[in-house]
């Protein structure tokens, strides 16, 4: 009996890709079977909606929107599942493998891409063609797969990095507290001044390679990936020159000693501890700083995103996707577009420093006025201004595995074990190897 089940299971796993569409959706039963997006009549059935760690802060908001939607569509019941970031990849993998993805799922492009590549999601270019024009083009484009037609998600909310800095430490280093750095060279120069003034008690910046390295190359005009999306191309002389600057900064003690391999969460900790003076990150981190280090939050100023000579800025996109396997696609689509409509996004942006992906909502005076003059208002205005010329610069192929492969070489370069050019060449080769498999 075990061996029989074993055989069946082996077979099931081996062909999982083709099975997913055949598998039912646990929890979301739909009596009408209206699985096509183009059905008619009132919406019915259950829609499961999965988000990435929005509880507890937004419980009220999300439940409010769900309540409104259910009132408008009395036949539909929305079931909300929030999953923590930690373990999200594994859960999604298991669900995708078993065909138990929810009807509407909240993903960022990097998470979504391998699933999109399998053709698991509804093409929004056609299914949601009516609303496509309402959204910031750069955000909509984030859910395309290179070399494949269509776009697979409705952009939900956006963030655009700003530069937070500790005015107290700026003063100690003799820097102008009203003038945060805006270019990469300024950033390194100010970082150096801060670290020298700190003499080991505080530093200028954290390299946060994990979070910024590849984005920073893109902002300086380095082409990351070829047109087919198969070969990495960031081993240019410009990139090598920039990496050489980072190497010099590391050697010169601009970064804290142990920061070489540390990620963004350690950088956040270090800023909150008053150990670093400059913190380029999403404006939503202002809330977190306030919670953990109120004194540092008081001393924090905000400047625009660090950019290269062309002033290209980056943005991060969160989207809502509907799996093709959903048995209730029509209601799922209706709910996703409702969640991401102008009114609901605007309300969302008022509880947290994120930006709406709907162009009309962005024009709201809330994002353009000085507001109450607080740091949050300033951060909101700055990041909203940036969005107009911002793009999602990091290609979706830059997933966790490519990132690991690339950073390993960059870390060695910073330690002086590999020359900048050689490190980049090896990084490109390693990244190609991962992307090819």
């Amino acid at each position: 009996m075990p061996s029989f089940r074993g055989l069946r299971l082996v077979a099931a796993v081996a062909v999982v890709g083709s099975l997913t569409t055949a598998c039912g959706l646990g929890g979301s039963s739909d009596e009408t079977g209206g699985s096509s997006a183009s059905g008619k009549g009132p919406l019915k059935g259950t829609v499961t909606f999965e988000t990435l760690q929005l509880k507890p802060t937004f419980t009220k908001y999300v439940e409010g929107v769900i309540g409104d939607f259910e009132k408008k569509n009395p036949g539909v019941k929305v079931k909300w599942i929030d999953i923590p970031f930690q373990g999200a990849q594994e859960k999604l993998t298991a669900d995708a493998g078993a065909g138990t993805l929810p009807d509407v799922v909240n993903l960022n492009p990097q998470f979504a891409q391998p699933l999109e590549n399998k053709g698991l999601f509804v093409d929004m270019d056609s299914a949601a063609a009516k609303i496509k024009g309402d959204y910031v083009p750069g955000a909509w484009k984030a859910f395309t797969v290179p070399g494949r037609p269509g776009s697979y998600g409705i952009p939900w909310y956006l963030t655009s990095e700003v530069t937070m800095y500790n005015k107290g430490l700026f003063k100690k280093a003799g820097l102008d507290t009203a003038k945060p750095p805006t270019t990469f060279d300024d950033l390194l120069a100010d970082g150096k001044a801060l670290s020298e003034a700190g003499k080991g008690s505080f530093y200028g910046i954290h390299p946060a390679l994990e979070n910024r390295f590849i984005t920073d190359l893109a902002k300086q005009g380095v082409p990351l990936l070829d047109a087919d999306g198969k070969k990495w191309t960031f081993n240019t002389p410009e990139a090598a020159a920039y990496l050489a600057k980072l190497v010099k900064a590391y050697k010169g003690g601009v970064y804290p000693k142990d920061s070489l391999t540390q990620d963004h969460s350690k950088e956040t900790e270090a800023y909150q501890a008053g150990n670093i003076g400059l913190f380029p990150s999403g404006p939503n981190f202002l809330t977190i700083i306030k919670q953990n280090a109120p004194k540092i939050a008081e001393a924090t100023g905000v400047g625009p995103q660090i950019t290269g000579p062309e002033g290209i800025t980056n943005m991060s996109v969160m989207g809502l996707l509907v799996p093709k396997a959903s048995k209730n696609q029509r209601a799922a689509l209706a709910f996703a577009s409702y969640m991401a409509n102008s009114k609901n996004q605007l309300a969302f942006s008022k509880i947290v420093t994120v930006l709406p992906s709907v162009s009309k909502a962005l024009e709201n005076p809330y994002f353009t006025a000085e507001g109450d003059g607080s740091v949050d208002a300033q951060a909101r205005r700055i990041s909203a201004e940036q969005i107009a010329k911002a793009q999602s610069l990091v290609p979706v192929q830059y997933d966790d595995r490519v990132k690991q492969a690339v950073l390993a070489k960059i870390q060695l370069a910073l330690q002086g074990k590999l020359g900048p050019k050689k490190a980049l060449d090896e990084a490109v080769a390693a990244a190609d190897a991962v992307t090819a498999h």
Partner: protein
Amino acid sequence: MNATTAAPARPAETGAPTAPRPVPARPRRSRRALAALVVRYVLLVAVLLVTVGPFLWQLSTSLKGTGERVFGYPPQLLPRHPTLSHYADVVDTIPVFRYGLNSLLVATGSALSNCLLGSLAGYALARMKFRGRALAVGIFLATMIIPFESIMVSEFLMMRSLHLNNTLLGVALPTAVTGLSVLLFRNAFRSLPREVEEAAVLDGAGEWQRFVRIALPSVRGTVSVVAIFSFVFSWDDFLWPLIVLSDPAHCTLTVGIQYLSGTFTNDQRVIAAGTMIAVVPLLVLFFCLQRFFFRGVGEGAVKG
């Protein structure tokens, strides 16, 4: 190593463990004994300092007032404005009691099933000779070696085909009895003197009778060890419950406290309070059970 080979036979020479042993005379309160006691406490405190760190940090962080710094080195251990409000925040944010109850159900079930099924299997492996025994040992050993990551997806598929996904039973079933529990019991039963049971055989007791009436009570120490190990494992497990469960109502505590840090919020004090709520029951349980670790062959049988 002559002693090695001779040793396992020795307990028998000293008589059956059920025999009353002389109450050890109270040690003379000599100066040497006192000095030894002092040295013992000094060592105890030294190891305490090495191990107490995480608990202390969590406790102190969870009690810190909102204005106090959490990060930074050297860590500031004493909260300046101690408050319990973060514990209230945890209770307000997540249904701690419901999640705790779910965890309790899974962990208690796991502890019971591990003790029961583990002791049965361990007894057979330690006390019976039969063809295929090595294979059985190998299978239990293998379950411990297999990296969970490599079977996670197949396991989930299986739960789905059994219609146990999104149930607490689905969370508990794969670890209902672990290779570790079986091996711990096998080890314990092996060190029991055979003579005890052989006496029972003469009494005409069957295999089952001997197991329940003689063998199992003699390894009570191991029963409590297996109970605490399986309880703690189930209580702490994160990835598997997260994958199996999709209904928030079925969440276990370890998964639930993840919601204390969100994409846009990350108050370390509240997270520490949540972690304390998850960890303290385990330490209390350990504190209550630790005296039983000793009730093995010797004392347990006497003092009952």
